[in-house]
């Protein structure tokens, strides 16, 4: 049952990314290009997603635990550190260069191109590198 719930969540997420146009790097870069012909689409996507999740989480957290799990697994840290902010900065540069963040990059596999394939491989290697850096 947990695997089916995961699939439904992924499917909703993939449909959302595709319908909103986030599987098009031009839409994302158009939003980030505030000095050019600005494309507001991503603002509506993020706004719609955050407000829906804000309301949804409040309803969900009225329960003591998830339907198929022992407990809600939420991050507890509150402090800002160099790893968080430095990581976010590196991610932002990569996002600005490509127009892909991890979700749209993976969701776009159905229209796979060589540059996207290269990005996905590099992203996975990057995750391994970050794990090694964190451990040391």
């Amino acid at each position: 049952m947990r695997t089916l719930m995961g699939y439904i969540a992924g499917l909703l997420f993939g449909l959302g990314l595709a319908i909103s146009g986030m599987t098009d790097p031009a839409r994302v870069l158009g939003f980030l290009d505030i000095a050019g012909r600005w494309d507001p689409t991503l603002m509506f996507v993020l706004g719609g997603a955050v407000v829906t999740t804000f309301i949804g989480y409040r309803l969900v957290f009225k329960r003591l635990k998830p339907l198929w799990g022992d407990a809600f697994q939420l991050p507890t840290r509150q402090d800002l550190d160099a790893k968080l902010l430095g990581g976010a900065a590196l991610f932002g540069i990569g996002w600005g260069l490509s127009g892909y963040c991890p979700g749209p990059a993976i969701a776009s596999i159905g229209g796979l191109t060589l540059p996207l394939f290269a990005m996905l491989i590099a992203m996975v290697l990057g995750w391994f590198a970050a794990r090694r850096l964190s451990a040391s």
Partner: protein
Amino acid sequence: MDWTASLQGLIGGILIGLSATWLMATLGRIAGISGIVGNLVTQRPKGDSAWRVTFVLGLISGPLLLMALGGDLGNVVGRPGAVVGEPAGGVAMMLLAGVLVGVGTGLGSGCTSGHGVCGLARLSQRSIAATGVFLGCAIFTVYIVRHVVGGGV
């Protein structure tokens, strides 16, 4: 302004929010793509991998479903009927971008979904700070690429 594109953005955003709500309600997990997939490929956590695999399959099948329906629900700039857009650069640039996105989301514990959607919805201070930093750096990068190096495209 392209109101159809904005409306589709809003509808898609609401679907992403429903996905995040669904994953928390059923499995108690944050719908952060870099966390779900990154932990799957680097650690293959025992007893905690199957739902991650099916989540990824769902993520990929969403756009495929729209393609099978003819692509009318896609929102690619200037290409009606297309669901997935073209990459913005060649292999070399995408390799560089991929490493930065992988290392950055790995060290920073999240991406646009984990920090940007779920974290902001939880009013998490760390996520609000991270989202501000990656949005700012992405805007700055696009400015440099398009208007300083590229001379204004």
